[in-house]
């Protein structure tokens, strides 16, 4: 296709995917403990604005990322307290959190559109990134991208092969039984919710500080919702979530280039294609219902109230 370089496309794909991937991997852990937090979009955008504001004012992208994580975590804690301690409805609370985050971020970001965030240094020396083909793909990224892949690996290992992961899965599978065995269901869920908030906030901060390098109102543009959908269609499997996120990022990066190349397809169709294609592919992958049901946390979204 005219003028589309596969290498820069892959590089762009990885950058575009990372915010969604971070949010999805956090939400995956949250859902594995049986909690459905629909506030991912709100936490992401709050992370984006806080990360951006702090990075611009301090000149340190690292502090920006930390601020993004902290703000996502703080927002998730509101959700955690409401749903886990005050037993509010998870769906309604999560939706409210998204609306709250969108409004809060618009307020906090007043005056920042157009500011320039400090540049983010890459962990590998520039010489490595200049190796043909694999250089830009493997060594040309910011630290957060490597971190996000490591995080997927860590979540996969912890959930599948450690006692902590077993407890997380057990709590999500049957909270009453876990309680009867003496596990602190609420504490475990609160910790997972905060982990999810931190991941979503980091994803948001990455989006504003690294990828777009600007603050725009509502800039997450539904990435949080895509992350939520990814978790379900990935059947709660970390590597599949990575695959889904990269697919989403890949189609996004491709359609942007197609738009730029002036291809004869309406822009609206190109713009919606990443969402449609990602969902279709993941639906097909998760179409084996019985296997998906096995992996789905059975207590997802159910209110836990300790009795006796």
């Amino acid at each position, binding site marked *: 296709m005219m003028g589309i370089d596969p290498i820069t496309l892959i590089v762009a794909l990885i950058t575009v995917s990372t915010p969604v991937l971070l949010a999805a991997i956090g939400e995956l852990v949250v859902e594995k403990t049986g909690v459905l937090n629909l506030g991912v979009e709100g936490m992401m955008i709050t992370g984006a604005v806080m990360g951006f504001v702090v990075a611009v004012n301090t000149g340190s992208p690292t502090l920006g990322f930390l601020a993004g994580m902290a703000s996502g975590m703080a927002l998730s804690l509101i959700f955690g307290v409401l749903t886990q301690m005050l037993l509010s409805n998870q769906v309604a609370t999560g939706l409210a959190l998204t609306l709250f985050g969108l409004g809060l971020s618009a307020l906090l970001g007043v005056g920042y559109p157009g500011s320039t965030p400090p540049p983010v240094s890459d962990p590998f020396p520039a010489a490595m990134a200049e190796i043909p083909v694999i250089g830009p793909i493997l060594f040309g990224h910011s630290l957060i991208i490597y971190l996000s892949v490591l995080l997927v690996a860590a979540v996969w290992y912890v959930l599948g092969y450690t*006692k902590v992961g077993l*407890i997380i899965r*057990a709590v999500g599978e*049957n909270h009453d*039984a876990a309680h009867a065995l*003496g596990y602190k269901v609420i504490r475990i869920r609160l910790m997972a919710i905060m982990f999810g908030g931190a991941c979503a906030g980091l994803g948001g901060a990455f989006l504003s500080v690294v990828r777009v390098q600007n603050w725009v109102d509502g800039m997450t543009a539904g990435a949080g919702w895509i992350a939520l959908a990814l978790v379900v269609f990935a059947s709660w499997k970390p590597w599949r979530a990575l695959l889904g996120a990269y697919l989403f990022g890949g189609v996004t990066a491709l359609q942007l280039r197609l738009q730029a190349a002036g291809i004869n397809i309406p822009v609206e169709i190109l713009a919606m294609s990443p969402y449609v294609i990602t969902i279709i592919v993941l639906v097909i992958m998760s179409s084996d219902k019985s296997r998906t*049901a*096995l992996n789905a946390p*059975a207590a997802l979204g159910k209110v836990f109230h300790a009795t*006796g």
Partner: protein
Amino acid sequence: MTGEPLLSINNITKAYPGVVANSDVSFQIQPGEVHALLGENGAGKSTLVKMIYGLVRPDSGSMTFRGAAYAPPEPRVARSTGVAMVFQHFSLFEALNVAENIALGMENPPPQRDLAKRIREVSEAYGLPLDPDRLVGDLSAGERQRVEIIRCLLQDPKLLIMDEPTSVLTPQEVEILFHTLRKLAAEGTSILYISHKLEEIRALCDEATILRLGKVVGKCTPRDTSAAEMAELMVGKSLATPARDNAELGEVILKVAGLSVEPSNPFGTPLRHVGIELRAGEVLGIGGVAGNGQDELLAALSGEVTTPPGTITLNKTPIGDKGPNERREMGILCAPEERLGHAAAPDMSLVENALLTARQRKNLADSGFVNWGATRAYAEKVIADFDVRTPGPDNVARSLSGGNLQKFVIGREILQDPTVLVVNQPTWGVDASAAADIRQAILDLAQKGAGVIVISQDLDELLEVSDNFAALNEGRLSNVRTTRDLTMETIGLMLGGAHDMHDLDEEAIHAEA
């Protein structure tokens, strides 16, 4: 046995708002003793063992374990002290495998591979065959209980608490369990055995403490005490056995032929070519361990799952494709097992719950408008006729105790004069006197000419009420036998005792190969 008791409970009191669960309860358990804790539902047995296991803290009173003060703040502490518990409602995780489930109940689980090996060793040593790699969701109730027991045994407990362990087991499985428990007791492990099944307690236990309404009302040595005496202590009055005159059976009213149903969830059991002929005035008992297709059979009979029209016929009319409301109008009524959420809407009042199934047959709604006066009157009639203990029909279903709600659910269906009544587990979790009332009501209904299908895991109950008996095993229904000619042994084989052996044979073949 005169030495120091293993566990001594001294003057324990625990009150919840509005109810005293335990009042001044004291008893001792000796090392190696099988001690029965006997009582009706609501007598305070569960609260008491939860305190021993550290899930609930007593308001006053004390416990000593091997001579030392014992007040576990959480189950972890109880487990490390040497107290293990097998729960009534299994505390298992269906989507995890056996080894993972066991690891969750241990303080310091070894790596999975070592654990799997130890599970195999212990399960062989105690005659409880179990494969560590299987998903718990695929196991039978008996096998699930083995998971819980082995989880306890791996921690080498001094005291093993068993809360109503036999309610879901076949007679053969009960034998295996008792064999294991006797072996444990002989090795010095004490067992606290909670049940309201008197014959089991007489067969197994050394000492018994009887609770009623939170108080200790008696202690006895079960071997030297008759079941009737213990029942009287437990209930506070003597019980009448349900009975009816021998009835002539009429024409076949309900016919099921070649009924096959796929389950709606991954752990369900498909029904395979089930055939039933139910006559007017007949009580057909369908026995079987939970998870062998009972829920699916009820759903197919009630119309929640529809099947080709000819598979179910009522008075020669094909109805397989009709939904629940149409079937209610024609006279097939059902009372499912799960009271809260299936038989009754937990947060709706009894009046509203009465409307839910009685609308058609009792004409409680007219051209879309509910006749609340008539509905309330009907709910009140159910409450009065079936002795449902509740402050009034406006109380929500959730606020009733299990037994009272069950009486309401069964009464609501019976008072609609069904042609066919299908009940699943009519007395599950219901105390002895309420259970006797429900069984009598079922017999009275059959006496009036209705056909009744009773699906139950309680074999004593089926032998008491049913004219004919069939067993449901892995979604297949056995041949129908006359109840009079049955022995426990035959029933056990019908229920899958024979099937287990078949499985073992297969394993042996695999082992050789």
